[in-house]
C-alpha cells in the first residue's frame, strides 16, 4: 500500500510545465509566394493552438498546429482573404482560437477599459489641478519670529538627535 501511495505521490507531484517550442514553421510548409507566406505568418501568429497551453500555431510544434498552419496556407493559395481564413477557423473552433479578441458585445468592455481608465484618471487629474490652481498657500510664505526661534532649537537638538 505504501509503495503504491508513494508512486502516485511522485506521479502527481507538481513540476514546472514548460512547452517545447522547438519546431514552429517547417521548411516544407513555406509558400513560394513571399507575399502570401508573409500573410500566412501574420495570420498564424494570431491563431491560438488549441491543444497547447498558450501558444500561437506559428510557434507551436504540436501536430495539430502544423496541420492548421498548412491549412491556413492552403486557404490563402485558394484566394481567401485574411478575414475569410479567420472566419474559417472560428467556424470550427470558436473565438477561442483568436489571440486578438474580436470586436463584439462580449469584448467591448475589454477593448474600451484602457481608454475608460485613462479618461477617468485624466479627468480627475485635470479637476484636481484646477482646484489646486484656485488655492492659495495656507501659511504665510515666510516664517514668523517665534517659528524662527523654535526652528533654531530644533536644529540644535537635531545635532543631538542623530548622535546615537
Amino acid at each position, binding site marked *: 500500500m*505504501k509503495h503504491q501511495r*508513494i508512486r502516485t*505521490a*511522485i506521479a502527481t*507531484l*507538481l*513540476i*514546472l*510545465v*514548460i512547452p*517545447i*517550442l*522547438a*519546431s*514552429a*514553421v*517547417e*521548411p*516544407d510548409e513555406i509558400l513560394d509566394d513571399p507575399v502570401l507566406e508573409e500573410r500566412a505568418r501574420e495570420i498564424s501568429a*494570431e491563431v*491560438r493552438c488549441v491543444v*497547447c*497551453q*498558450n*501558444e*500561437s500555431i506559428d*510557434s507551436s*510544434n504540436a501536430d495539430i498546429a*502544423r496541420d492548421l498552419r498548412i491549412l491556413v496556407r492552403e486557404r490563402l493559395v485558394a484566394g481567401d482573404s485574411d478575414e475569410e481564413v479567420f472566419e474559417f477557423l472560428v467556424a470550427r473552433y*470558436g*473565438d*477561442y*482560437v*483568436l*489571440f*486578438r*479578441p474580436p470586436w463584439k458585445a*462580449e*469584448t467591448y*468592455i*475589454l*477593448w474600451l*477599459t*484602457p481608454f475608460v*481608465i*485613462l479618461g477617468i*484618471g*485624466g479627468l480627475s*487629474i485635470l479637476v484636481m*489641478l*484646477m482646484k*489646486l*490652481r484656485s*488655492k492659495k*498657500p495656507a501659511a504665510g510664505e515666510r516664517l514668523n519670529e517665534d517659528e524662527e526661534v523654535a526652528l533654531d532649537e530644533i536644529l540644535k537638538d*537635531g*545635532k543631538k538627535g*542623530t*548622535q*546615537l
Partner: protein
Amino acid sequence: MIPELGNLALTLALAVAVVQSFLPMLGASRGNILWMRSALTTSSLQFVLIALSFSALMRSFIVSDFSVVNVASNSHSLKPLLFKIAGTWGSHEGSLLLWVLILAAFGASVTWFGANIPDTLRARTLSVQAWISVGFLSFLLLTSNPFERVFPAPLDGNGLNPLLQDFGLALHPPFLYLGYVGFSIVYSFAVAALIEGRIDPAWARWVRPWTLAAWVCLTIGIALGSWWAYYELGWGGWWFWDPVENVSFIPWLVGTALLHSAIVVEKRGAFKSWTVLLAILTFAMSLLGTFIVRSGVLTSVHAFATDPERGLYILALLGITIGGSLALYAVRAPAMEAGGLYRPISRESGLLVNNLLLTTAAATVLFGTLYPLLLEAVTGDKISVGPPFFNASFVPLMLPLIIIAGVGPFLSWKRADLGGIVDRLKWAAGITAVVLLITWYLNTDGPVLGIVSFGFAIWLLLTTIQEWAWRVKLFKAPISESMRRARNLPRSSYGMALAHAGIAIAILGFVGSTMWKSESVTFATPGDQVEIAGYELTFIGAETVLGPNYTSRQGTLQVTRDGKPVTELYPERRNYAVAGSSTTESAILSTIRGDLYTSISEPAAESAEGKWTLRILFEPLVGLIWLGAFMLSLGGILSLTDRRLRIGAPTRAQNPMPQPAFPAE
C-alpha cells in the same frame, strides 16, 4: 536527519514569526520598548531559521537524498551540480521556501540596516511583515511541505525539466522573487504607516531604499526570464504576453509608478494617499502573480501544474492581506493631510501623468490577463487575449510616457517655465522629427507603432543626455567647472538618467528585432548554404555529443561574410533520456548590428528524413533589450547608493549634520 532538521527549523521559524506578528505591534501601541525591540531579534532569528531550513533542502538536493519527496521528483543523480542546486527552487515547494526565505531576509534587513527608522514604525513594519510570514510559512508547512519523506527511498529521481537546466533560468526565479517579495517590505511600511497614522517626507525617505532594491531585482528577474526565452526556446522570441509573464510585469509597472510617486512625497509632501495605495497595490500584484502561477486558474505555458486546493489557500491569504490592507486604507486614508501646492505645469504634474499612464498600463495588462476568466464566469464563453491585444493597447499607452520621461527632468517643482523648456528642447525635438521621417521613409509599409516608438526612443535618449549636459553646464561653463559639477551631481541623478536611457535603448531593441527581423527556415543537408543579412552560413553537418545527462545532436555552421570567415556556430538539439524530452540550444553570434541566431531540429515531415531543419534569424539590435535592462537596473543600484538614503543612520554618527555647503561626494 538533515531534512528533518530543516523541517524542524521551519516549524520553529513559524512559531517565531507568530511571536513577531503581534508582540512588536502590541509594544508600539502600548509604548513598551522591550516588546517593540523584540522585533529586531525575532526578525533576525526567523531569517536564520529559514536559511537553515533552506540549506537543509539544498544539501538534500546536492547529495541526492531521494528520501525527500521533493528531491526525488525534481532531481536526478546524473544532473550537473549547478542544476542540482538550482533544483532546490525548481519545484513549487522549493520555490515557495525560497519565497519565504526572501521574505524573512527583507524583514531582517530592516533590522540590520534600518537603524535610522523610529522604533515604533520599525516595530509595526516588522510585525506586518511577520503576518505575511505566518501566512506563507503555514501554507508551506500545511499544503506543500518541501521536507516530506518517502520510505523506502526511490533509487533515482524523476529529474528536472530539461528546459530548466539552464544557467539563465537557474538565476531567474531568485531574482524574480527578490523583486516580487521585496515589495512586501514596502507593503509592510505602508500598512504600518496607516496604523500609525503618519505618512510624511521622512517616511518616503525611509521606504525608498527598499522600493529601489526590490524594483532593481524585479527588473533583473524579468530581463533574465526574457533572455532565457530568447536563446532557449529556439525561435528568437523574447516576450509572449503569457499570463505568467504578465503577472511579473504588472508589479513592475506599479512598482515603477510607486518609485516616481514616492519622490513627490519625499520632496513635496504631496501624493501621500496615492503613494500608500501604490505601495499596497504593488505587493498585491505580486501576490496575485503568485496565486495565478500556482493555482492554475489561467492556462499558461509556464505555470506550476495546477492544484485548486493550494490555490484556495493562497486566495485566502490574499483576501486577508490585500483585502485587509485595502479596507484599512479606505478607513485611514482620509486622515492624511493634503500636501504642498503646485501648478499644472510642474514636476509634480509630470509625475502625475507618469503615474496615470503607468497604472493605466498595469490595469490594462491585468484586465487583459484576467478577462478570459471574467468572461467565462459571466457568460461561459471562452476567448483568448493574446499578444495582438496587448501590443495594440499597451504600446500606445507607453508612447506618451516616453515623451513625458524626456520632458519631466527639466520641469521644476511647483511651477515650471514651459516656454523655457520648449526653447531648450527644440533641437532634440527637431532631430526626433527627422529620425521619425527617415524611419517612416525607409519602412513606409511598416507598423506605425514601431516607427513611432523608434523615433520616441531617440527622443528620450537625446533629452536624457541633454538633461545631464544642462545640469553640468556642458560647454556653457569651462570644462573644469563642468567636470566638477558632474562629480558633484547626486548619484540618484545619474541613476535616473541611466534608467531613462536604458528604457530608450531597450525600446530600440524591441523595435529593431521585431521590425527588421529576417528569417530563413530550410531543410539542410551537409554542404548547404544559406544567406542572410549579409552573412553566408554553410551547414557542415551534425554530430552526436554526449553531455552529463543528455545526448546532443550538434550542428556546425560556418559563418562567412563577403567570403571572409567570421566564426563557427554550434546549435544543438539535446535529448534528455530521463525526462524523455528534448531542448533546443540556439547558437548566437552577437554583434553591434544585431544577433545572428541559429537553431537546429529534426524535421516534422517524414519525407524530410535525414535532413535537418535549420532556423536562422537575423535580429537587428536585439541585444539592446538586455543592455537597456542592464542600464535600468544599474540606474536603480546607483540611486540606491546615494548617500541621502542613509541619513540618520548610526554609521554617520561622527558627522551627523551634513555640511550646508558642499560636501565632496
